[in-house]
């Protein structure tokens, strides 16, 4: 009974919805103050950002299309991070998993060439990308489950290893011999994801991303496997007593998480760049963490959240050209958003607990809220 009331009190609290929006606004205000201190006009900067991210879609859809294009890998990476989080593990390694997923696709096309029809080639490349990322996520998952290696640190190291792996591949086996710069050969046309709105680069990968997000949501909340992943994430001890093999589901959570990031890499590769270049998709992994947290660690929340952050990053590029503020300013703003989001989520929950306590006449500490949709703290190791 108290549980139901508690959910009700939490849901009816307008702050649940308002807190993330306030976090963004506050971060933008702080960013604006910073710009002002540095002698740049924040209004001009943010207007440039708006133009670059959205503009006037009825006259010229380019800006909006760019925002949607960039949202595709972000959505997939963030969905993957949700899976890991729900399983009680933190995956900081999306960046590396995304690289390895894309690398696997390049390797595939290097060995298969253009001998396959698009109808087979495109799905195959997405599967291979998923597998590549899943492999890169499996390693830290296995080390976590078998040797209790801290998965945060391990996934960070795996990122750095993937970057070097990418460089090795680009300067060696997968290098385009005809080019002077380090890049792979152009992928065969049969593996490309189609573009929907030329001359913009918006590609059909957006459907893959939306489907993957919804499937992940169904998997986590409508299947026994998802139930067990979440059970392990909530309470490892209790799950063990309930007969769930905790190590298996920890590995599974990180593997799926990596797979989704790898899928993001494959989509970005076959839809946008269509060849591997050094510096490919850099920054998507870390932005994906921000997107996932902002989407309240729910796969469906990742969709609007990815669009929002994609707009911020896409807009930041225009901002850099217009007011000469470095593009990385947006990374600082993202950092502030993360700090606000994690702080406010705890605070809102405590507030809900207090309100509930007053409601049923208990002292607040007697009844802490269970981890629910708003909780972004994984279970303890």
């Amino acid at each position: 009974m108290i549980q139901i009331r508690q959910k009700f009190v939490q849901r009816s609290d307008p702050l649940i919805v308002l807190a993330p929006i306030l976090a963004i606004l506050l971060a933008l205000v702080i960013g604006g103050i910073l710009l002002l201190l540095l002698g740049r006009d924040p209004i001009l900067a943010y207007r440039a950002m708006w133009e670059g991210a959205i503009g006037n879609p009825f006259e010229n859809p380019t800006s909006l299309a760019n925002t949607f294009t960039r949202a595709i890998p972000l959505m997939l990476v963030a969905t993957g991070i949700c899976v890991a989080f729900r399983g009680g593990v933190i995956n900081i390694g999306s960046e590396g998993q995304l690289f390895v997923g894309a690398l696997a696709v390049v390797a595939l096309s290097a060995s298969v060439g253009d001998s396959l029809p698009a109808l087979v080639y495109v799905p195959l490349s997405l599967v291979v990308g998923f597998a590549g990322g899943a492999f890169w996520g499996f390693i830290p998952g296995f080390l976590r489950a078998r040797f209790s290696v801290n998965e945060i640190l391990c996934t960070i190291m795996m990122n750095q290893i993937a970057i070097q792996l990418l460089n090795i591949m680009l300067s060696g086996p997968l290098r385009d011999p005809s080019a002077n710069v380090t890049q792979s050969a152009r992928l065969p046309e049969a593996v490309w994801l189609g573009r929907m709105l030329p001359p913009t680069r918006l590609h059909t990968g957006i459907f893959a991303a939306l489907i993957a997000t919804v499937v992940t949501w169904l998997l986590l909340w409508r299947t026994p496997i998802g139930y067990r992943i979440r059970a392990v994430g909530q309470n490892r001890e209790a799950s063990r007593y309930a007969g769930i093999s905790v190590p298996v589901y920890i590995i599974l959570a990180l593997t799926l998480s990596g797979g989704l990031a790898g899928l993001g890499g494959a989509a970005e590769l076959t839809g946008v760049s269509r060849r591997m270049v050094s510096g490919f998709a850099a920054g998507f992994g870390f932005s994906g963490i921000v997107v996932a947290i902002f989407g309240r660690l729910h796969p469906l929340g990742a969709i609007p959240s990815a669009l929002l952050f994609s707009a911020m990053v896409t807009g930041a590029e225009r901002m850099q050209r217009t007011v000469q503020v470095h593009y990385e300013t947006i990374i600082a703003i993202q950092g502030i958003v993360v700090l606000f989001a994690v702080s406010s989520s705890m605070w809102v929950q405590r507030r809900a607990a207090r309100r509930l306590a007053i409601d049923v006449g208990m002292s607040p500490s007697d009844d802490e809220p269970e981890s629910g949709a708003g909780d972004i703290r994984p279970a303890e190791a």
Partner: protein
Amino acid sequence: MDERTLLDVLVAASALTMVSAMPFLYSALGEVFSQLSGVFNLGVEGIMLVGAFSSIYVASDMGLDAGLLAGVLAGMVTGALLGLVMAFVSVTMQADQGISGIGITLLGRGLSTTLFILLADGVLLVESFQPIRIPLLSDLPVVGDILFNQNIMVYGALLLVPVTAWLLRRTTWGLQIRAVGQNPAAADAMGVNVEQVRYSAVVLGGTMAGLAGASMPLALTNVFQVNMTAGLGFIAVAMVYFGGWSPWRVMFGSLLFSAAYNLQIWVQVLDVKLFGETIPVNILLMMPYVLAIIVLVFARDMQRFRPQAMNRPFRRGD
């Protein structure tokens, strides 16, 4: 290569390994304080970047030209400020520590890059700390050049190892840090102000991460570059696990990782070949991270030294 010159080269490479162990030492020792108090501060990477930028900006004649010591101080102050932010988010707001650390890292990276481009147009050089020969000791063969002909920040880092060990084992404050990290409820019952102790430990950790950042441009590279730490801060956090939260083992880890970072030089000096081929640079660059993972696997025995309350915010009545 004859005997004499090989020895010289080995000594030079060892001396270089000593210098580049310095940022690891500062940041990892700082992280020991923070983690022992129960706060897993993953923001070290970002704090180091801000510390590095602010220190060289204050010190360089292309910036404020206030001298090297003022630069070091600036690095420490900005580090302390970011440590304060981390403490506020993780202790007062009780947010998840791993994620807060990522937030701090993003903030630090974005901030240092933005300021670097806006304030310094993307170029900052400095005349760094020069080596100081310690009389008599520096005349010793081999060890003299490795240990006693370094710049002041290297001496400082080495000195911090016994100081940290002493602080943590022999002072009331150090014991309080360990108590609030192991069992905050018991410490609270004994009248220790858990929040205050954690704040002090995290801010000190931030200060030392800022110092680590300052040491890079001021005593190692002479320049600032965008994202110049390149994951070094994360390795420092891993090293604390590897070192089982003991300053002496952390020092050992720092030297090990510093050697791994300078693998390129060592491989050249010792003329190591793989199947008769020169080893590709990227594989050497990969090694510190591979080593970090291997070390984390084998250091799992160290988990028994893990502060029991790490990652757990404390509030009364739980």
